[in-house]
């Protein structure tokens, strides 16, 4: 391997166990200059950052957290391939930074022993020293570096400590030849690997070792051998494993035994642990937070507060955004000449996009609060608590994190199921993940709750009826998901309850930088979406609602009525009769609304809506709500912009404090004058959106993840059916209860 000294760009790969602060370190090293994407063909997130050090460009690659470099899936193979420089899209790493937490150095060094065998320059970044010391563990850094034969640098990424030393160590490690790989395995095993490697030209020694250790790994397929060669290789592997078992080195046990023995030698006398057996702070916290009853109460409380906060904190910025869009609309209205173009910009683009962008504060706040809960280590406890319940429906607590991610967005949620080994458990989790109320549903909930659920507060304002309703919608998704999991695990995906092992990371204060970064990322995704899909759908929706226009003949009687009402208003005004003036003004408004209504019914969307109206009538919906629901099958957040386009037809803002769309839906009515939206109707809409599979992107990700259209089709069919039944029951029962 050549020394990287003369190259102008270095590639630095970061690898480490989960919960070691690796991503924080990556963020601290690369600053704002980072990109996220995907490795083609797999769903591993590709995180790349850049930094200039000493006149040289460093390309930082953050690899997913892992306990071991034993590839059991195509995803895990990506990490190994990047580290070995076997991928075309990432240059071979010049230096590997192995991130290890000081608190459980044993397990972290297990991975380090694998990284060292790759034969590249390695620097060990030792994180969380303060936490380890608080718990009575001290690491002799210099002695550890001597034993491992690589630089060891303590870092506190959050406070920026040790970063310069780490960069200097990386610079130095890349400028000298890599250290000789450690002799982890017994002599007999190494000889078998050497013999195999001699017959496999060009295959890195580490992969040969893995071939011997991992039966059924993905490596053989990746070697691009002819069938005969592959069979011959398999036969040789089987024979070699048999010889090793004979000698007392059974695979795969020999790996863990040898590596932990090596780790034991490397840390002997280097790591000191106090024998103080007093319960740690974390355990005292866990005695409440992980307690079956208390912990569950805390979990419900935490979620309740979270969702209440989403509602209360977002009000002010939402009013700003709304006022901004209203002002923009007024300005365009006043500037451009009357005609379809002005109507398109005001009624289509500004009303549509504005109606969705207004929910940005809520989404960002929800993402931020979830990120804080994850960062401080609470989410793992929630998964632990949930295992008891999840195992009842045939899943493990491990499915909880993908499901919880789905509250932000089902796409990362579906992708996060890759950590679930069992195929049936993974498919079940994927199928129920879209039932979790994602942030795109939040706009619908917020609109309906804000407009129709009374703002009552209990317990000194800590708990609010609106927050409770929102929580209810989230709980509905969860309960239905549990029922579906139970059904799926007993029918199409029959199987036992999977195992559950999960690290519960140390409690710590969340890093504000990481939380803000997540909020910005998701917020930006949302805006980008609003700028493209929602923008396009808004325009299409506006067009479908605007054309065809009423013909002159159809318009004439309506205009006559309007003219009559206006002249009556003039007469009333000049006579000075206030009562008559008010009545005449009402008549003018009526006539205008009548024209707008006739135009809408005449439009393409109006016709489609009226065509499906018989089907949505039992849900308490009129054709407008039906059309909006129909239009939101590509992406559910579109419903708000569609409602914005349908209801926000040039109506005046009457009360400055209230948001325009909220006001518009509150005043919407049936042709006979009854208010359109009642509480049962609002709830029925929310239930429909809570359960319906209205997201093309999610279905596409499901297809990519499962490699078949069966699962997305199944998901779409069952969710849409459930949504209709749920909305029907909600409206019918709600109406019956309220009358």
């Amino acid at each position, binding site marked *: 391997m050549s020394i990287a000294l003369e190259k102008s760009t270095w590639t630095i790969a970061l690898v480490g166990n989960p919960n070691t602060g690796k991503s924080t370190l990556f963020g601290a090293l690369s600053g704002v200059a980072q990109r996220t994407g995907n490795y083609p063909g797999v769903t591993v997130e590709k995180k790349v950052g850049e930094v200039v050090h000493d006149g040289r460009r460093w390309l930082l690659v953050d690899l997913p957290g892992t*306990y*071991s470099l*034993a590839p*059991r899936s195509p995803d895990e193979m990506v990490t190994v391939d990047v580290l070995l420089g076997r991928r075309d899209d990432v240059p071979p790493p010049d230096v590997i930074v192995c991130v290890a937490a000081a*608190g*459980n*150095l*044993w*397990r972290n060094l*297990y991975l380090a022993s694998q990284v060292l065998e790759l034969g590249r320059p390695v620097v060990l970044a030792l994180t969380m020293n303060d936490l*380890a010391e608080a*718990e009575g*563990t001290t690491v002799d850094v210099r002695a550890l570096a001597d034993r491992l034969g690589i630089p060891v640098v303590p870092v506190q990424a959050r406070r920026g400590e040790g970063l310069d030393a780490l960069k200097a160590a990386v610079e130095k490690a890349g400028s000298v030849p890599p250290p000789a790989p450690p002799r982890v395995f017994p002599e007999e095993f190494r000889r078998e690997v050497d013999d195999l490697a001699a017959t496999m030209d060009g295959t890195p020694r580490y992969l040969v070792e893995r071939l011997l250790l991992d039966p059924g790994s993905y490596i053989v397929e990746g070697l691009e051998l002819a069938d005969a060669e592959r069979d011959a290789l398999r036969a040789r592997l089987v024979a070699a494993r048999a010889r090793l078992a004979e000698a007392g080195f059974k695979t*795969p*046990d020999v*790996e*863990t*035994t040898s590596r*932990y023995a090596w780790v034991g030698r490397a840390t002997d006398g280097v790591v000191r*642990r106090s024998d103080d*057996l007093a319960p740690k702070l*974390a*355990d005292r916290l*866990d*005695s409440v937070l*992980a307690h*079956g009853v208390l912990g569950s109460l805390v979990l419900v409380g935490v979620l309740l507060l979270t969702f209440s906060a989403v509602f209360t904190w977002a009000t002010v910025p939402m009013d700003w955004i709304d006022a901004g869009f209203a002002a923009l609309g007024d300005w365009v209205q006043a500037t451009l000449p009357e005609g379809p173009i002005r109507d398109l910009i005001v009624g289509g683009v500004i009303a549509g996009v504005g109606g969705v962008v207004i929910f940005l504060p809520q989404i960002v706040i929800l993402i931020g609060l979830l990120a804080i809960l994850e960062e401080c280590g609470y989410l*793992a406890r929630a*998964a*632990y608590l949930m*295992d*008891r319940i999840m*195992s009842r429906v045939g899943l*493990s*607590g491990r499915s909880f994190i993908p499901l919880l991610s789905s509250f932000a967005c089902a796409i990362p949620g579906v992708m996060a199921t890759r950590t679930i*080994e069992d195929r049936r458990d993974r498919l079940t989790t994927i199928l129920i993940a879209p039932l979790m109320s994602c942030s795109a549903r939040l706009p619908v909930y917020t609109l309906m709750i804000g407009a129709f659920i009374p703002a009552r507060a209990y317990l000194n304002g800590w708990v609010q009826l609106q927050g409770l309703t929102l929580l209810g919608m989230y709980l509905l998704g969860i309960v239905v998901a549990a029922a579906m999991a139970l059904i799926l695990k007993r029918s199409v995906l029959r199987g036992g*309850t*999977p*195992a*559950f*092992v*999960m*690290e*519960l*990371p*140390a409690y710590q204060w969340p890093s504000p930088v990481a939380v803000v970064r997540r909020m910005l990322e998701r917020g930006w995704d949302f805006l980008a979406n609003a700028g493209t899909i929602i923008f396009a759908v808004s325009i299409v929706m506006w067009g479908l609602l605007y054309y065809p226009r009423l013909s002159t003949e159809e318009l004439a009687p309506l205009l006559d009525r309007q003219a009559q009402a206006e002249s009556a208003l003039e007469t009333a005004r000049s006579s000075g009769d206030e009562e008559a003036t008010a009545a005449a003004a009402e008549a003018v408004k009526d006539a205008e609304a009548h024209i707008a209504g006739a135009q809408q019914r005449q439009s393409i969307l109006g016709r489609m809506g009226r065509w499906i109206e018989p089907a949505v009538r039992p849900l308490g919906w009129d054709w407008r709500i039906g059309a909006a629901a129909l239009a939101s099958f590509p992406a559910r957040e579109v419903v708000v912009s569609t409602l914005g386009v349908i209801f926000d037809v040039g109506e005046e803002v009457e009360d400055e404090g209230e948001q325009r769309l909220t006001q518009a839906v509150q005043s919407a009515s049936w042709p006979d004058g009854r208010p359109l939206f009642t509480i049962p109707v609002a709830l029925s809409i929310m239930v429909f959106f809570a359960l319906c599979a209205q997201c093309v992107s999610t279905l596409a990700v499901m297809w990519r993840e499962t490699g078949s259209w069966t699962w997305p089709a199944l998901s779409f069919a069952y969710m849409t059916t459930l949504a209709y039944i749920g909305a029907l029951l909600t409206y019918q029962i709600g109406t019956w209860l309220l009358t």
Partner: protein
Amino acid sequence: MIASMATVEIEDGEEMVPLSLLRAGQSARVGQVVGNIELVHRLREMGLCHGATVCMIRPGSPCIIGLDGQRLGFRCDDLARVLVRVPAKAS
């Protein structure tokens, strides 16, 4: 009764019992992990291998165990049985 059925007497006055029988705060060394081969290997990679000291933090199912400074949430069931060595009870 159940405990005595599940135990296996071994040398040096120690016996092997399932991890789930440890009381809160009790420590023991891992003797053997048996079950699904991939799951067992994963547990061993995480440090739950022969000779490692585990401490029961919260018994139950799932339980919380302490292992080299880390805390693991772990459901004790038939998929992977962790047997630990404890001093044999004088009977």
